[in-house]
C-alpha cells in the first residue's frame, strides 16, 4: 500500500510524467488550433507517425536535431495543407478525409522507412536530445532533479502553450481564428478570407501534431519503431474536448494523462504478479473515454466545427 503512494514522492515519476505529457501537449495544441478554426483533424494519428519518422530520418541523414524538428513541422504542415484543401474549399467529410490523411501519412512513413532500411534487425539509432543542464535549477530541492531530466524539446512544448494562449486570446489573428470557427459569416463580413484562415490554422495545427511525433523519436527515444504512436493521436482528440479548447487546460489535461500513464507503468511492477499488465495498459484509454463522456454534456464546441462554409450560401 505504502509503496503505491511512495511512487508520488519519487522525482523519477514526475520527470516521466512530463516526458509522457510532452507529445500530448503538442498534439492537443495542434488539435485545438484546428478545431478552434472549425476543422476536425483526424489526420492527427498519421501526422504523429509522419512527424516521428521524418524528423528522425532527417537527423539520421545528418541534419542537426533542431533541423529534424523543422523537417517534422514542415511534413506536418504539408499533410495539414492536404487536409485543409480537401475539407475547407472542397467541403469534404472531415471525418472520412481525416481517416484518409491518417492512412496516407502512416503508410508513407512506413513505406519510406522500409525503403530506406530494407532489412535491419535492430532499428538504427541517432544521438537524441540530451537533458538540459541548466546550472542553478538542477540544484533546487525536489523539483531540481525533475526539471534537470527534461530536454529543450519539452521547453519548446511549454513555450508553445504560452504562445498559442496569447495569440488566441490577445491578438487580432487569434480573434479572427476563433471567429472563423464560431461564425464564419462574420469573418467574411470583415473582409477576411475564411478559406485562408482555416487552411492556415490546419497547417499550423498539423505542424504542432508532427512535433508531438518527432519528440518521441528525437527526445523520448532515439529510433523509429512501427506502431510507436499507438493511439496517442486519438487520445489527443479526446483530451481536446476535455480541455474545452483552451491551451492552459490542454497543458493540464496532458500532464494529468502523463501522470496517470507514468503511475500505471510503476504500479505494474508492484501489482504485476496479481493483476495482468493489460489492465494497467488499458487505463489511459479508459481515462480518455471517461474524460470525454464526463465533459461532453457541458462541452462548448466551436459552433461552426465540422460545418463547411461556402461563400454566399446560407
Amino acid at each position: 500500500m505504502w509503496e503505491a503512494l511512495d511512487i508520488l514522492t519519487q522525482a523519477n515519476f514526475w520527470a516521466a510524467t512530463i516526458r509522457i505529457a510532452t507529445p500530448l501537449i503538442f498534439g492537443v495544441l495542434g488539435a485545438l488550433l484546428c478545431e478552434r478554426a472549425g476543422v476536425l483533424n483526424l489526420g492527427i494519428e498519421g501526422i504523429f507517425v509522419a512527424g516521428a519518422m521524418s524528423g528522425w530520418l532527417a537527423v539520421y541523414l545528418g541534419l542537426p536535431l533542431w533541423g529534424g524538428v523543422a523537417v517534422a513541422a514542415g511534413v506536418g504542415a504539408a499533410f495539414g495543407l492536404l487536409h485543409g484543401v480537401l475539407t475547407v474549399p472542397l467541403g469534404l467529410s472531415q471525418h472520412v478525409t481525416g481517416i484518409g490523411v491518417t492512412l496516407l501519412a502512416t503508410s508513407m512513413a512506413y513505406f519510406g522507412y522500409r525503403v530506406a532500411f530494407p532489412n535491419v534487425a535492430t532499428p538504427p539509432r541517432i544521438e537524441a536530445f540530451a537533458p538540459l543542464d541548466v546550472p542553478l535549477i538542477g540544484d533546487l530541492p525536489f523539483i531540481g532533479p525533475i526539471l534537470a531530466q527534461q530536454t529543450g524539446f519539452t521547453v519548446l512544448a511549454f513555450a508553445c502553450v504560452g504562445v498559442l494562449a496569447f495569440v488566441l486570446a490577445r491578438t487580432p489573428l487569434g480573434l479572427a481564428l476563433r471567429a472563423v470557427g464560431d461564425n464564419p459569416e462574420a469573418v467574411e463580413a470583415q473582409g477576411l478570407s475564411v478559406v485562408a484562415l482555416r487552411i492556415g490554422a490546419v497547417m499550423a495545427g498539423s505542424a504542432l501534431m508532427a512535433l508531438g511525433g518527432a519528440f518521441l523519436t528525437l527526445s523520448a527515444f532515439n529510433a523509429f519503431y512501427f506502431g510507436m504512436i499507438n493511439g496517442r493521436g486519438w487520445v489527443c482528440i479526446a483530451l481536446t474536448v476535455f480541455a474545452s479548447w483552451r491551451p492552459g487546460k490542454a497543458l493540464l489535461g496532458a500532464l494529468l494523462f502523463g501522470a496517470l500513464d507514468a503511475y500505471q507503468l510503476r504500479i505494474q511492477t508492484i501489482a504485476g504478479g496479481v493483476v495482468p499488465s493489460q489492465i494497467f495498459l488499458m487505463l489511459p484509454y479508459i481515462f480518455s473515454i471517461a474524460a470525454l463522456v464526463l465533459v461532453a454534456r457541458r462541452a462548448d464546441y466551436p459552433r461552426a466545427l465540422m460545418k463547411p462554409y461556402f461563400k454566399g450560401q446560407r
Partner: protein
Amino acid sequence: MIRFVPRARTPVWLSVAVSIGAGLAALALTAIPLALTGAPVFTAFALMAQGAAGSGFALAETLTRATPLIFTGLAAAVAFRAKLWNIGAEGQLYAGALATVALGAGLIEAPPYVLVPLVLIGAALAGAVLLLVPVLFKTRFGADEVVVTLLLNFIVLLFVQMMLEGPMKDEMALGWPQSAPMLDEATLPKLVTGWRLHWGLVLAVLAAVLLHVFITRTVWGFRIRAVGENARAARYAGLPVGKAMALVGLISGGLAGLAGASEVAGLKGYLTADLSPGFGYAGIVVATLANLSPLGVIPAALFVAGVFVGADSMSRAIGVSNYLADLVVAFALLSVLVGGLLTRFRIVFVRRGTA
C-alpha cells in the same frame, strides 16, 4: 469562374465510373513514390495484378482476403449512411472473434447445424454490444462516437491479449498466446477442398444482399437513411432517431463481429492477437469506395483485397515493401472522396458577371 451546382440525383453509371476512376487514380498516384524508390513501376504493377488475379489460386486468395473486408465494409457503410461514425470495426471484429472461440472451442458440444449458427450469433452480438456503448454515450451524453470507438479498439485488443495469455490460453500451444482450436462442428467448411477459401464468403455476400434489401425496401431502412440525411428534419417528422441510431449500431457492430467469426471459424481455426491486419480500418475505405452502397461493397472489397494480395506477391518477387498496398488504399480513399464531388455536384463553368 467554377460553380458547384448540387445534383438532385446521381446516375448510377457516374457513381460506378467515379469509383473505378478513383481506383486508377490511386494506382497512378502510388506510381510516384514507387518510381522515387527506383523500382520498375510497370513491372511492379504487372506483378501485383498477376499476384491478385493471375491464376485460380491467386483469385481464391483474393476472395479469401475480401471476405472480412466485405463484412467490415458493410459495417462502415450502414453506419456512415446514418452519419454514425463507427471507426471501431477493428475492435468489434476482435470482440466477435473472442466470442467465436469462447463458444466454439469446446464450451458447448453440439452438431454443426446448431453450433455454427450459435457461434455466428454470439460473434455478431459481441460486436453489436461493443458498438452500442459508444452509441449510448453519443445519444445520452453527447460524447463524440469517433473518439470513443477509436479508443475502444485499443482497449479490446489489450483485453484479447489478456484473455489469450490468461484464462483462454491454449495449454497445448507451447507457451504461444493463442486460444484453443475451434471444434470441427463449429468450423465453417471450405468451399473448395485444399484451398483456403471458405463459406464465410457466401455469408458475406448474403449479408450484402440482405443489407441492400433492408436499406432500400423496409421502413426501418428508410428511417435510417432519413436520420443520416438530416437528423433534425427526421426528429421533426416524428421519427424515432434514438432507436434508429441504436439499430444502426447493432447492425454495424454485428457485421464487424461476423468478420471476426468468419476469420476464426472459417480461416484460422483459433484466435491470436494478430488476427486482423487492420481489416476494420480498411472497411472504411471499402465502404467509401462503394459510395456506401451495400452491393457496391462487394467489388470494392475485391479491389482492396486484390491490392493487398497482389502487393504481398509483388513484394516477394522484387523486394519492394508491401506497405505499398497501404499507400494504394489510402490514395484510393482520398481520390474517391474528391471524385465524390462529381457525383454530388454538377460542375458548371460560368463567365464572370453572368452568374
